[in-house]
């Protein structure tokens, strides 16, 4: 051997360095082996990487199906997967920009072969196909096809990422929200009901649409519930909940049932027992949701339906603290009140009827905190021998307060109280009757010869609605209320066709005052009929608004006839004219 030759020496050094470097690589990436032969013999757990893969379920077989095309592509890029992915993403963006959607779809499918386990990619591109691309098409059938492509894409994602709760939940979301909430929802839901090919594909992936039938055909909301259930089952089996908040993840299923019940009445016109059953089912699901323990972002578990119980416990602890430090709360409050400026104190002492908006703001954000007495302050006034006990109690109150506040804020996020009441209320006979009457009246309100009947139905419906709102005032300020204003407007048109003024003591004046659409409607009545707007029961004594000068009021009272002629179609019906004559007050 010629060690004098520098080239030879260099080669030997290189070889030695390579051999040395191979050792740690072998240690890190040695594959795991399974046992062969006797039962006693054990396989090797493999190198560090293999062990980590097993520990975190990261091996490809654990994650999902092994796709030869995907694996080939990953290998064929020779370590330049990142570059290839970037090029493909750039192409996809370009194709989308130039509206070359076929190529966009092809590019997206190439991307996911290179990034099959990157969940955000599935999420992003499915949204791209179902939402961004579908709206580029003018024909609703094309739009539906692209929504389907997004859903198909997510289903494909569940092949590569088996039982991934986030993807399963998103499939449910697209089936429910995208098909049921788009501008084209009527058309989408109609197409979905008839789409046997799609149903068969769902069946192939463990979702039997026959379990989600309404009037004999699969309902997209109920099908979405099946996907949500699959997602929840995956979590129950121990799959981690990634990219989703538990609060919203578990909310999807019950909301799907609520939406299905709403659609049953609103779109399919089904009332009575079937609707009642649908609402009862939704009600139970909502209750289960309320009873479920959810991990809050603060790190503790909450239950949405426990807020009253928590508040009682909180009150009990406050009472306990007051017993330990008697009189301290009141004393502290008086001290704080005394420390306020006189004008500040005057605001707090104002009768409720005189409190202005500005006062409310100041009370909530400035004066309230100033006079509030904290448990720690009370504890600090405790006698020496009881101070430890009092401080312990104050800490318990603080902790519980945090839970109460978090639970309250989470309840607000999902509008818990409203949906709880809504599910309960919608099962009542008066609600079902009110809805059926409004829908039927809406349908016949333009039929010649049926105007009086429509009016009668509307008025019966308003009475039922009024009863319902009295029992469940929380329903007043809602989308449902806004939708009802549309029907009230139809009722108003009907009255005009019958040459009858809109009643000043309208049963649902409270609703009209509560929702913006209602207030606008009242303004319209004021303009069209030239009469003062109908007033809520409590509004009778209210002084006239400063912006309505008396002379205007006089003017608007003068005309006897409506400002505009009744709508065509209703006008030329002699039978109804007679009926109008009879019913005119």
């Amino acid at each position, binding site marked *: 051997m010629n060690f004098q030759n520098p080239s030879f020496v260099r080669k030997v050094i290189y070889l030695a360095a390579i051999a040395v470097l191979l050792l740690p690589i072998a240690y890190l990436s040695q594959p795991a082996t399974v046992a062969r032969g006797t039962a006693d013999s054990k396989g090797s757990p493999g190198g560090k990487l293999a062990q980590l893969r097993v520990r975190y379920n990261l091996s490809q077989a654990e994650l999902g199906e092994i796709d030869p095309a995907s694996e080939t*592509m990953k290998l064929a890029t020779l370590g330049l997967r990142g570059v290839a992915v970037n090029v493909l993403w750039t192409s996809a963006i370009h194709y989308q920009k130039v509206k070359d959607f076929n190529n966009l*779809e*092809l590019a997206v499918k*190439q991307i996911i072969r290179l990034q099959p386990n990157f969940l955000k990619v599935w999420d992003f591109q499915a949204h791209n196909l179902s939402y961004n691309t579908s709206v580029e098409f*003018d*024909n*609703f059938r094309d739009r539906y096809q692209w929504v389907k492509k997004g859903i198909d894409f997510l289903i494909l994602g569940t092949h590569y990422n088996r039982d991934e709760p986030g993807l399963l939940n998103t499939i449910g979301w697209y089936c429910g929200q995208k098909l049921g909430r788009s501008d084209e929802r009527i*058309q989408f839901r109609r197409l979905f009901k008839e789409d046997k090919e799609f149903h068969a594909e769902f069946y192939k992936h463990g979702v039997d649409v026959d379990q989600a039938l309404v009037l004999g055909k699969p309902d997209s909301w109920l099908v979405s519930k099946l996907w949500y259930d699959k997602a929840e089952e995956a979590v129950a089996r121990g799959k981690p909940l990634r990219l989703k908040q538990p609060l919203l993840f578990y909310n999807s299923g019950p909301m799907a049932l609520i939406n299905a019940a709403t659609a049953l009445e609103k779109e399919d016109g089904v009332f009575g027992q079937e609707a009642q059953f649908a609402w009862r089912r939704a009600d139970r699901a909502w209750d289960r949701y309320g009873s479920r323990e959810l991990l809050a972002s603060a790190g503790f578990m909450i239950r949405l339906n426990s807020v009253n119980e928590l508040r009682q416990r909180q009150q009990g602890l406050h009472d306990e603290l007051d017993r330990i430090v008697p009189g301290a709360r009141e004393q502290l409050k008086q001290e704080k009140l005394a420390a306020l400026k006189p004008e500040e104190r005057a605001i707090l002492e104002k009768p409720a009827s005189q409190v202005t908006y500005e006062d409310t703001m100041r009370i909530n954000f400035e004066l309230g905190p100033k006079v509030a007495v904290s448990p720690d302050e009370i504890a600090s006034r405790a006698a020496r021998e009881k101070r430890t006990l009092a401080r312990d109690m104050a800490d318990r109150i603080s902790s519980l307060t945090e839970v109460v506040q978090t639970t309250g804020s989470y309840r607000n996020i999902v509008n818990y109280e409203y949906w709880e009441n809504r599910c309960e209320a919608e099962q009542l006979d008066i609600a079902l009757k009110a809805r059926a009457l409004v829908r039927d009246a809406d349908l016949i309100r333009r039929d010649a010869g049926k105007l009086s009947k429509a009016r009668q139905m509307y008025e019966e419906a308003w009475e039922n609605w009024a009863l319902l709102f009295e029992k469940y005032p929380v329903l007043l300020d809602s989308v449902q209320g806004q939708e009802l204003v549309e029907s009230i407007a139809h009722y108003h048109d009907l009255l005009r066709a019958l040459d009858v003024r809109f009643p000043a003591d309208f049963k649902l004046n409270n609703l009209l005052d509560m929702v913006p659409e209602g207030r606008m409607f009242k303004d319209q009545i004021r303009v069209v009929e030239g009469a003062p707007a109908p007033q809520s029961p409590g509004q009778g004594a209210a002084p006239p608004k400063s912006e309505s000068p008396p002379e205007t009021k006089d003017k608007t009272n003068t005309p006897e006839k409506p400002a505009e002629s009744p709508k065509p179609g209703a006008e030329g019906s002699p039978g109804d004219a007679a009926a109008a004559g009879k019913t005119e007050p």
Partner: protein
Amino acid sequence: MPFEHHVMTFWYWLFGDPLKIRFLDATTWTHIGFLLGALIILFLIAIGAPFVWFLMAAVKHGPSEAFYLVARAIYGGATDDLPRFSLRRTLAVARVAVQEAIRNKVLIGFAVFLVLLLFAGLFLDVRNANPARAYLSIVLTTTNYLVLVMALLLSAFSLPNDIKNRTIYTVVTKPIRAGEIVLGRVFGFMAVGTVMLAAMCAISYVFVVRGLSHTHTIKAADIKPASWKNAPPGSKEGVTSTSNHHQHEFRVEKDGTVSQTDFIAGHFHENSVTQQGAETVYRVGPNRGDLIARAPVFGNLVVHDREGNVVEKGINVGDEWTYRGFIEGGANRSAAIWTFSNITPERYKDGLPLEMNLAVFRTYKGDIERGVLGEITIRNPNPEAKVKSSGPIPFESREFVAHRFPIPRELNAAPAADGRSRKIDLFRDLVYDGKVEVSIRCVERSQYFGVAQADVYLRPSDSLFALNFAKGFFSIWLQMLLVTTYGVMFSTFLSGPVAALATAGTLVLGMFGHFVRDVATGAAEGGGPIESFIRMIMQQNVMTELEVATWMDRGIKICDKAMMGVIYALTFVLPDYLRFDTSQFVASGYNIYGDLVGQHVTAALVYFAAAAVVGYFFLKTREIAG
């Protein structure tokens, strides 16, 4: 989108519109034709290259010797080598190049192609809405890249290897000229490449046709009473069996005849029905309409705004892609008017075979169960004509499809003042001097139609798909010619790996020229090469200022600007390979029209000639140096 650029005739492309060019107004330079542009660039190279050559030689040999060297080379080239150029000797060199290519296992490239095709099924998205497009795109793109890489490797290493192994001396000692060596190499490699490309073309054609070929069956049980609106009594509808991941629907008329199927997955099938005894047998024909080559006849587009003024383009409705402009609907004068030429009864005996591909933009939902309504008016271009236009022909928009809308010869005239309408003849009353105008309006208020020049065309007949497919491969051949020529040119003065790198550089610059120009002009965010590199390493967002010291930032920007300036200039000298790419025409079912082929051939020949001349001088210099 095959027609993303303005559709130009060959002569317009070559000569441009010199009358519209203003020397000091850069915005008018777009009217410069290829010929003038090429002449300017070649002139600058012809002046600049010898000067650079002189400077480089002057460093080594001194100015007088350098001047003599350059002058002798140019003079010798013009007076000696050019007149005595021998095609026989060139072909002899070419023959050697062919043998060398075969010896260098060039057929491995072909084997790779076959392997890729064998496994293409794994990567093909057969569920795509247009599988023909996917098939065609994949074979054309794969062949394109493979052939270009092969041409690069073949051309860049051959001459340097000969020089390194000194086998070149067996050639140069013969009475053979540098130009013949350069051209001989190019011809030889191109001969090998041509044979391979022809084989790839044939195999690809079979692969595509066989891959898409399918049929369906119809069972009597799948035929049910018609459910469509206003269906005549007794008519039926049915659905075919599933094949290639799709099904078709069809109608059975009340007289028992069967319609062709609907258009799904980019094709349809012709159906037939026969009676075999008591049994009715339905047959579905082969797939049709997917492998086509529409040969559109384009017109010139003029857009009118709502006041009726001619505007360069329609309204931008917020699309990032400005290919289409939009015309406003409703009672206004907004319209898009296409003027078609050479309209004769002999060519269009049944009327105008109009096809449209309009975009739709709605500002409100409207009736989503149907398209947006529009109207077509056929107008006489002669303002003095007695009959100015036909009456409006209503239509309903269909987006993202080639919407066939034949205009018959006999039309209703525009309603007269007394409200009466009469019949007119398209050719007699509306065609003037072989020209006719097609005006399109959107009828619905506040809804819009998107229009571009290539969106409305006449489709008298289609070209042969096989021929169009071959034209697609011819485009690849032209790119191969350019890569080979550049490879040989670089190999005349660079070592093999460096020549390969330089050729790859021209390829990359040629393919990403637009991006490079965007970076150079600042249109693309992120800065030049140094700045981009720093941003990548430091993980800095391209939208923020570079987080380095001010002096360093200034230095980086100056260096970047200098580098990008050079690269920017190079993008104009090097061929734009994307312009040669016609795969989208073939894949989208459009004929690669003759004017385009003419443009490509002319451009390729100019680049080929320029590169060959440069290669000749470099090799000649090398001889002199040797």
